[in-house]
């Protein structure tokens, strides 16, 4: 019979679970103490490998299953103390974890795997010297000389389909088996009911086996027999204690697993969307009821009050569903630091705090690359070589501290190292060389910020370690795209600190409402510096139409929103309206509006999915009175402005 079902839906789950399992294997291996390895850690790593092998086999991913089998066998030998734990072995196992990740990625992408690499690794695993492990694994030495089992089945046992002979057949696989039957309960032939069991047995099993293994074999017949398992031999107490220890552990892991479920991200987004609409509806309701007069008004207002509170709570909860502990991103870092510091000949300690701080899933995904880049830089350029550190009176081991915490509506991530700090002279020289600054004096803070300029990365900076010349400008841009910003402070010789601020969630925005003509627009408060009444003296004209406004010591381009968005309005002279000074993180501009309205939290609705992407706008929202307001994307607006004006000037 042909198999027609589509197994691919199960593949997704397999990939997710396997990658999680590989993560568990990696942490286990990183935490393994080579001198006195903990057998529980080895067991955890083994179990993870075993699960992956099973899943891969189920889905016919034979390459993965076969390779995992080799890893599993290796781990099993370690467990069974036939092979010792050495640095070399741990390194190979970590490489195997990487290889499996690679194989899973290939499988997902439908690409072929480089078989030679995998075969080589498999060989190495087989060849790593098998040292006599006797002393180093932390468990008591060889165990019981045997077990004595008394098995008295209830008469009806056969009618459950269980057969004592099959149970004994299984016991035989555990060790040498000696069986003695007891027929005393057997009645005379004419009273014998062939469907009942009258026999009982005494079984002696000699071998290195555990009580668990024996009682597992009798698991199905538990309620249908009398069973006694006793240890023979003088190592009894030793073994009982070890059993007790092992039994105590698994519960924690199970409890943790039961507390969460997997949910498809589309469902979560759908729910959040609905909540967003509820917020809007509730605010319209609030407004409408404010206009009603009469007796029932008080009752109605009281109920609306409750609705407002419920909605706000619901909204908070819904947002939280999308949040995950930042640990999901932080947990790659120890491995990164370990590998990197080894290959660069440096010694670095990584300390992580606040890894249970929760962040929105999208933020989590997008912050990963910037973080990795910053950590790479810290190890590569920040921390000095051990000799240099000692010469500078610092401890040989460098320290990198990464922390995450929540402050107000933001997540703060700090990456601090005690390395060499930024070399201000070198940065200034490079920047001048590349034409990024002129000869003017710059403050230390300004000099530091030069590294975020596009085009700053020098050839000497782009080592194979720090990446394909990605550059700090991309890091900054990625962070800005998330609605956050990054600051840096550094002391030469002492160290450097990066401080990243990110919004907690992406779907809600603190907005400043402004009016242009009959339209209401929303400007993200995060980007606003100040709102001012233009003063004629400060307005400068350049090439006719284009105007620039002098704000403090800077010249800001004036962006006339009515022009950009084609909105008819009576207020076209700058002195008759207002200017909102905005900052994209990289540059500033002044937005010309008719009037400034209130501030409020708005739920961002995507233009892209409901209409099409519009340059200059990041989305739209529905206000309390039911009107639609566009939300301005400051960065793309300034870009748009620059492009249009470049055309005009040309």
């Amino acid at each position, binding site marked *: 019979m042909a*198999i027609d079902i589509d197994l691919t839906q199960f593949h997704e789950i397999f990939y997710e679970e396997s990658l999680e399992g590989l993560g568990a294997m990696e942490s286990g291996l990183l935490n393994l103490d080579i001198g006195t390895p903990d057998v529980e850690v080895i067991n955890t790593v083994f179990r993870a490998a075993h699960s992956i*092998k099973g899943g891969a086999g*189920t889905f016919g991913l034979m390459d993965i299953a076969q390779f995992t089998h080799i890893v599993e066998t290796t781990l099993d030998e370690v467990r069974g103390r036939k092979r010792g734990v050495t640095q070399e072995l741990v390194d190979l196992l970590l490489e195997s974890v990487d290889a499996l990740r690679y194989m899973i990625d290939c499988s997902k992408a439908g690409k072929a795997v480089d078989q030679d690499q995998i075969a080589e690794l498999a060989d190495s695993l087989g060849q790593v010297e098998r040292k006599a492990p006797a002393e180093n694994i932390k468990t008591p030495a060889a165990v019981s000389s045997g077990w004595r089992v008394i098995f008295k089945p209830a008469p009806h046992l056969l009618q459950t389909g269980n057969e004592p002979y099959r149970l004994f057949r299984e016991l035989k696989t555990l060790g040498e088996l000696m069986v003695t039957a007891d027929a005393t309960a057997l009645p005379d032939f004419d009273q014998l009911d062939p469907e009942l069991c009258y026999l009982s047995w005494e079984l002696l099993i000699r071998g290195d086996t555990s009580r668990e293994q024996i009682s597992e074999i009798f698991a199905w017949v538990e309620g249908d027999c009398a069973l006694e398992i006793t240890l023979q031999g003088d190592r009894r107490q030793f073994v009982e204690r070890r059993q007790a220890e092992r039994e105590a552990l698994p519960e924690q892991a199970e409890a943790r697993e039961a507390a969460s479920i997997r949910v498809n991200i589309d469902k979560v987004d759908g729910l959040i969307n609905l909540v967003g609409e509820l917020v809007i509806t509730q605010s319209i309701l609030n407004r409408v009821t404010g206009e009603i007069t009469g007796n029932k008004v008080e009752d109605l207002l009281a109920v609306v009050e409750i609705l407002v509170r419920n909605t706000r709570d619901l909204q908070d909860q819904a947002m939280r569903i999308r949040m995950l502990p930042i640990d999901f991103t932080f947990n790659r870092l120890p491995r990164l630091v370990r590998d990197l510091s080894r290959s660069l000949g440096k010694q670095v300690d990584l300390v992580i705090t606040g890894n249970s701080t929760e962040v929105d899933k999208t933020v989590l995904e997008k912050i990963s690359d910037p973080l990795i880049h910053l950590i790479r830089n810290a190890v590569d350029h920040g921390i000095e070589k051990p000799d240099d550190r000692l010469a500078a009176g610092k401890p040989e081991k460098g320290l990198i501290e990464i922390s995450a915490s929540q402050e107000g509506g933001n997540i703060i991530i700090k990456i601090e190292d005690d390395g060499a700090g930024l070399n201000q002279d070198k940065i200034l020289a490079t920047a001048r060389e590349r034409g990024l600054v002129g000869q003017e004096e710059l403050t230390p803070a300004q000099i530091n910020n030069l590294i975020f300029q596009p085009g700053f990365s020098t050839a000497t900076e782009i080592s194979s370690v720090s990446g394909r010349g990605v550059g700090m400008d991309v890091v900054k841009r990625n962070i800005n795209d998330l609605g956050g910003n990054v600051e840096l402070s550094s002391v030469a010789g002492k160290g450097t600190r990066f401080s990243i601020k990110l919004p907690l969630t992406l779907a809600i925005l603190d907005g400043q409402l402004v009016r242009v003509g009959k339209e209401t627009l929303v400007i993200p408060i995060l980007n606003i510096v100040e709102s001012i009444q233009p003063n004629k003296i400060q307005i400068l004209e350049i090439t006719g139409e284009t105007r620039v406004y002098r704000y403090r010591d800077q010249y800001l381009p004036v962006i006339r929103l009515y022009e950009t968005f084609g909105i008819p309005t009576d207020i076209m002279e700058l002195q008759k309206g207002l200017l909102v000074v905005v900052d994209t993180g990289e540059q500033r501009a002044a937005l010309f509006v008719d009037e400034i309205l209130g501030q409020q939290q708005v739920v961002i609705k995507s233009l892209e999915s409901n209409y099409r992407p519009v340059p200059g706008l990041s989305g739209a929202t529905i206000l309390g009175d039911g009107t639609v307001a566009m939300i301005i994307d400051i960065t793309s607006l300034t870009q748009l402005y620059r492009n249009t004006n470049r055309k005009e000037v040309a």
Partner: protein
Amino acid sequence: MSEQKKTRILLVDDSVSMREMVGFTLKGAGYAVSQAEDGVEALKFAQGNTVDLVITDINMPNMDGITLIKELRALPAYKFIPILTLTTENSAEKKQMGKIAGATGWIVKPFDPDHLLSTVKRVI
């Protein structure tokens, strides 16, 4: 048990994909597999055929697993046949219910093919 005949297994589960996957694994190991999608179909099959092992899910429409086991045990040919239920990890009561109805034992879901086959070997 004659060597020429393949060992026959009756697989009862209302989930098509479950039946396909389990069936696939068992056939791959050389067993002959018959399928039913609920207790009613299974019982009808059993009244006209014998097998060496029955594997059944518990939650099914028309006739659930527990009832099926009770009915099967009432048939002379199925009085001593091994019957295994498919249960999830934590349902101790389901395991018990199966036993009380007359089941031989259980297979825990989700399972990997090795585990399925070794459990089947235990009872054949």
